[in-house]
């Protein structure tokens, strides 16, 4: 397939492209869903095709086809050049500034033990039905949904600079959610095997059946829980929750294309503009945010991005100060960088690569601190696990988040489950209030599997890790009834 990519690149060059790259991508997914005590569906889907990206006349063009016949591939390459000629009607006077990158020839594979596509379906069905059955045994649980999802992407990338790289990435994930219903309302609690680039061993290691009763009991407890008080509380956020908060308020805000206004009309821009680089106090001195596209099992770890840039590890926030961005070869020059950070990815053969979040997370605290010790040190707070409601303005400043489960903390003790907790804050003030992070023993990676960005919308995956952290005096309330 790499030769087919090379043929597409050559075809585009013959039509006048000054740069060209071509990606052949094969994606396979398997989904198994269960509702209560029955299976609702099993699917096995495949898609494949080629995307050809070119610079011609100083402007971008992209064309893609699901057909891998040589004639259709040549047609897509020619079409990409035609599209670029149209783009040139409104191109930058200086054309596209394309950062240098070494020529690479390499192959990358997700490390995994059990290929999820080779695990028998009846084993997966049995797991889901046993987990649902356990949760349904809890009095008050009226509905249970669970699913497993596996994704494999084989990618072949060649460009006109001689780079030829391949990747073979496997993603495994699953979820069980129990819903308790009473006369007034319904509440749901979940347990997830958060998406990771690994095999079925990830599902084996997630205690869906063993934890199903607890999940059901906590759904019932949410139903009967005390409504969140209105006011300011100290928040202790578990990594399973903090992952999404960081994703929205740090990950997106430090994508350089957004910062430069290239996503203005859809996903928005960023308050962390380049004039603030090296100066913006993003948070407290404890705050160190690292991007790492070399992280084992990371969802954004694929060896090389779709610009052909090798995976890297770097800080975007160091000691609370904004020090870098996530970039691509097209835009890294805007901050004076000679090399891209390698954050440019497409979600399929049919999509153009754009800057996507790397595996990005919060470094653990340097002093020994356990979650129990952190709770014991908190007088009046709320402990939050899991992802829930989330909303943030288009410059990534004003946000409101919920969660999956909430516990009151009174005088150093984790108490009863609360319901309807949301918190609102402004990004720099929120991270400025962070005064404690648990140590490396408590650092955990969590994945986001459905990050939307781009126009047309693309859906990407990335991993966010952290240890539990505490945020002081954050505005909380029950939302609106």
């Amino acid at each position, binding site marked *: 397939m790499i030769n087919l990519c090379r043929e597409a690149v050559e075809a585009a060059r013959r039509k006048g492209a000054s740069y060209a790259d071509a990606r052949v991508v094969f994606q396979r997914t398997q989904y198994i869903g269960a509702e209560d005590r029955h299976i609702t569906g099993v699917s096995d889907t495949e898609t494949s095709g080629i995307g050809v990206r070119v610079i011609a006349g100083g402007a971008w063009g*992209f064309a893609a086809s*699901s057909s891998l016949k040589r004639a259709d591939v040549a047609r897509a390459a020619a079409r990409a050049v*035609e599209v670029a000629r149209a783009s040139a009607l409104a191109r930058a006077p200086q054309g596209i500034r394309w950062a240098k990158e070494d020529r690479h020839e390499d192959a990358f594979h997700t490390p995994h033990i059990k290929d999820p596509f080779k695990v028998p379906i009846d084993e997966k069905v049995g797991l889901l039905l046993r987990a649902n059955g356990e949760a349904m045994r809890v009095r008050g649980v009226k509905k249970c949904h669970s699913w497993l999802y596996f994704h494999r992407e084989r990618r072949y990338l060649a460009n006109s600079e001689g780079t030829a790289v391949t990747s073979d990435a496997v993603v495994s994930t699953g979820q069980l959610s129990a819903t308790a219903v009473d006369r007034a309302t319904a509440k749901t609690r979940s347990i997830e095997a958060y998406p990771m680039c690994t095999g079925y061993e990830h599902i084996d290691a997630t205690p869906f059946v063993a934890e199903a009763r607890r999940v059901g009991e906590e759904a019932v407890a949410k139903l009967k829980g005390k409504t969140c008080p209105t006011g300011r509380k100290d928040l202790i956020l578990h990594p399973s929750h903090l992952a999404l908060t960081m994703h929205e308020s740090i990950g997106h805000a430090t994508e350089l294309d957004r910062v430069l206004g290239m996503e203005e*009309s859809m996903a928005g821009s960023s308050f962390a503009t380049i004039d603030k680089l090296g100066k913006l106090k993003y948070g407290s001195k404890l705050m160190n945010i690292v991007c790492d596209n070399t992280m084992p099992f990371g969802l954004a770890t694929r060896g090389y991005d779709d610009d052909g840039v090798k995976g890297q590890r770097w800080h975007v926030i160091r000691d609370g100060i904004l020090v870098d961005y996530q970039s691509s070869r097209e835009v890294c020059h805007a901050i004076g960088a000679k090399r891209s950070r390698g954050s440019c990815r497409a979600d399929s053969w049919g999509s153009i690569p754009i800057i996507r979040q790397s595996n990005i997370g919060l470094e653990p605290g340097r002093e020994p601190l356990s979650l129990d010790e952190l709770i014991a040190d908190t007088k009046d707070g709320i402990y939050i696990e899991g992802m829930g409601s989330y909303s943030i303005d288009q*410059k990534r400043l004003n946000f409101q988040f919920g969660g999956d489960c909430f516990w009151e903390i009174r005088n150093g003790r984790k108490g009863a489950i609360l319901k309807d907790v949301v918190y609102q804050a402004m990004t720099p003030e929120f991270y400025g209030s962070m005064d404690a992070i648990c140590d490396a023993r408590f650092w955990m990676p969590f994945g986001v599997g459905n990050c939307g960005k781009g126009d047309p919308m693309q859906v990407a995956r990335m991993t966010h890790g952290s240890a539990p952290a505490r945020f002081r005096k954050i505005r909380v309330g029950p939302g609106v009834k």
Partner: protein
Amino acid sequence: MNESQARAAVRRLLSFGRCDAMEAGVDAWSNGVTRLADNLITQNVVTESVSVWVECAYGRRHGLASTSDFSEEALRSVVRRAEAVARVSPPDPEYMPPVIPREAGKYLVVRDYSPRTAALGPMEKARELAAAIRMARARKLRLSGAYQNGWSLGAFGNSVGLATCHRSSSAEIHLTALGGDGSGWAQDKSFDCADINVGRVATEAAGIAERSRGAGDLPAGKYTVILSPAALAELLSFLIYDFDAKTADEGRSSLRGKLGKKVFGDNITIRTDPAFRECPGNPFSDGGLASRPVDWVRHGTVANFRYSRYWAKKKRKKPTSYPSNVIMEGGNETADGMVASMERGLLVTRFWYIRHVDPMVPSVTGMTRDGLFLVENGKVTRPVRQMRFNENLLDLFNRITALGRPVRTGEYMSMYLPPVKVRDFNFTSTTRF
């Protein structure tokens, strides 16, 4: 790919089946998006795709497989894979056998294909956008956005003789204008690009951007608001799926126990009509069943729920499709006329990032975006900084005091909605721009 080729491919897939029952489909589409940022074309894509899917069943055991490989070998293989999945799946008590032709009903004639829209090329779009950029530059504004066009073809068939096919086209433009600290946004969409005036959309976005410069503070709180049709569409998309009967009957929807009851204001009528010219929907869905016009809300009363084939059988109802378009009755007043009759309140251009807070209420939160204006004594007096809201949607649709003239709108779903005036809209915080 043309319709006869798509239908033939479906028949070919069905001929490979060895299972008890089978459905098959072909989806072909082409999509072109020319994208702007900062007065430049920054992305420009054309993607063409053909894919097939099959669902095979043995008794109540069923499985689905799909592929984008259109070779003879791949078509045979996709059927074998679906059969293999079905064989190892446990029986599904909610499985419904394929729809027989007389059960499907007569398909409505949905006219939503325009050959010129399907054929619109990147050069033609770039020329129109370049003219809009020249206008923006002359006004010292920066234009961003996207102009999309394309076509799609869906063919469906099953092992008991039902076969249908539909081709449609689409065009949509949305533009954001920036100037100083001001921003404005406008959109248009239709199945026919002849309905779309790029210059008008650009000029509307530019005007809002110019008027929104120098936004000042206004404390959060309850305000009467005028919501644009685009803003209303964002809210409505969080309510429309609550009309699912199974979810409501099982107590897991905000509309549980509310079928036939007065839930919304007298002035609220919401319906779906697949053949509605301004925002056509799909002529078939759910196993090939013909889509029918459905009133969801009639003068404030919940008139119908959506019934899947399984739930309809269980509850002895007729199956109803999910809404493929949403039409809300309005009045004759324009948004400007609504401003003129407003004593004090806020004019909202659009919303951004709305999410459920509690889907059982249903309560939602979100932000205003690209132009929020204070109205005093019938006039827009000044722009204000964007705000976050938290709202109860069932309650909100009882606080609509005026409805204007409907227009085409909607981000992901085709909608035809009026601007509306809502009292006591609940803003809970502000942001810094």
